[in-house]
């Protein structure tokens, strides 16, 4: 992985403050992101996602460790790296008194290829249904974010670093964004996408890293991380739920989170189904629905599992 890695992070740490007020925002992060990959970076607020991104962009300096992008050091070669990447910040701020076109022209001129970049920016703006003739202060928050996406993508960067990019975008634009990400993947470009919208990560990412309290808890493919041991099982009886069934289910070591509602029983199931089937055979089972956990639930499982260990 490391040899064809676009992003290569080794032991990266960041502490804020000093003395008693010192906060460990990121703790010895090791991570590689391969070329052509869309990598989802997940975690709750304050987990260290934005800190990681700001370190990669050389906006803040690591307390320990190092990282490379395209094999270039994030600190020594930041200007060259920035030439080849596009960035969308979570807290987007733009020049309020300037129009989208003026900002696009300015950013394009800093990037050094005004004509080609502006042409591509116009295409992106059209796809995102963005009016670039308006001043930023007159744009809605959703349209500001669209402009931020145009600025990040208009030079067709080799690597896109996106921090919570789709918050505030309407579903149609989110769909367009997902299509753009698929196109990026098809072109062999790389995307590092921080998000807490887990369904979005599930829809567009190849691999997912889960961060909590500044520590990387897991890095897996989306398929693999979805294939966790537990499943949700819904059993619908033709008649009322048999008496004492809930207690019987709760005694099964593989079953947790049992809830009943009329003729329906819902439970969280781990491992073999045979003990469950034996218990529910006392009633007339109309339907049996097995549901894979959502990425949200997987995330919560990582989160609560780790929390239990520490308690």
């Amino acid at each position, binding site marked *: 992985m490391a040899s064809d890695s676009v992003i290569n992070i080794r032991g990266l740490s960041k502490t804020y403050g000093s003395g008693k007020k010192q906060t460990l925002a990121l703790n010895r992060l090791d991570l590689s992101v391969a070329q052509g990959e869309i990598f989802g970076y997940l975690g709750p607020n304050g987990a260290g996602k934005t800190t990681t991104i700001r370190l990669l962009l050389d906006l803040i300096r690591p307390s320990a460790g190092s990282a490379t992008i395209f094999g270039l050091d994030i600190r020594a070669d930041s200007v060259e790296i920035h030439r080849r990447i596009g960035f969308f910040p979570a807290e987007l701020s733009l020049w309020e008194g300037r129009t989208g076109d003026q900002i696009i022209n300015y950013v394009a001129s*800093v990037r050094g290829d005004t004509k080609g970049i502006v042409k591509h920016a116009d295409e992106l703006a059209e796809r995102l249904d963005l009016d670039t003739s308006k001043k930023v202060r007159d744009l809605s928050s959703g349209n500001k974010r669209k402009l931020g996406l145009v600025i990040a993508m208009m030079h067709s960067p080799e690597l896109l670093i996106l921090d919570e990019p789709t918050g505030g975008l309407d579903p149609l634009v989110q769909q367009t964004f997902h299509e753009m990400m698929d196109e990026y993947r098809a072109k062999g470009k790389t995307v590092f996408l921080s998000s807490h919208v887990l369904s979005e990560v599930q829809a567009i990412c190849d691999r997912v890293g889960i961060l909590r309290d500044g520590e990387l808890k897991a890095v897996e493919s989306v398929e693999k991380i979805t294939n966790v041991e537990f499943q949700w099982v819904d059993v619908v009886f033709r008649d009322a739920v048999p008496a004492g069934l809930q207690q019987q289910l709760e005694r099964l070591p593989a079953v947790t989170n049992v809830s009943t509602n009329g003729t329906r029983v819902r439970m969280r199931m781990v491992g073999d189904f045979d003990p469950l089937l034996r218990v529910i055979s006392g009633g007339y089972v109309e339907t049996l629905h097995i549901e894979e956990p959502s990425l949200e639930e997987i995330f919560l499982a990582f989160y609560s599992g780790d929390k239990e260990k520490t308690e």
Partner: protein
Amino acid sequence: MTGIVIGNTLRTSWKQILYWGLGLGALGLYIDFIAMSPDIISGYADLLKSMPPAMLQAFGASDIALLTTAEGWIVSIFVSEAAIFLSVFAVMAGLNITANDEQSGLMDVILSLPISRSSYLLERWIGFALIGLGIVVLCALITLAGVIGMNVDAPHDVILKSILNLYPGTLLAMTVTCLLATALRRRALAIGFAAAFVTASYIFNVIGAAASGAIADFMENVSYFSYIHGEAFVVGTYDPADSAIVIGAILIGFVLALRNFVSRDIGI
């Protein structure tokens, strides 16, 4: 350095030249208008004679006799008042170089572009230095136009030079504010310290010029207001070394600001 950031700074902030330049120019015209009447000037000089030296200095008049001439009046009063207004501009411009964009989060977008921190700071500084120059030149030209238009009997070159001499001090106040913003990171703190710097400089200049002794001399020497002495152009005692000292302080301040900005974390 490509000049792109300078161009963008001028495009976004050029109106400041008009607002400040025209405002100070209007002040210059008002002072020119009074200078047309020798009676008013001499009456004002008589009033100042009854004041203690510190008060005189605060009114921009260290030499009463000088105030009775048209050029002495224009230079003494206009330069001392414009220096205060320009200090306000300088603090605002110093904050605009990095602090405002850092506070708003815009700096994250800017520094994710292929431009080094040092180039960015330098180009922003040059951009606002040019805006400051535009303001000083505009208000000097308006004041001079008033002198010519109102037939005030005052040497034009003296008026022009003494007003243009406001520029190094303005740049120094801007650079010190920029240095404070890069060192303190928090905009509110930088504003507080910059305001304290300007106010302390002004008070030091007033007290230092009015009193005598080693402490008073020291106070006057460390105040940048004491290097903006328009009267020296009227009486012919202007020393280029004074401007050189201010320029040296600007360079030192800028290098320290650059070092801070390049080496520290950006944002909150």
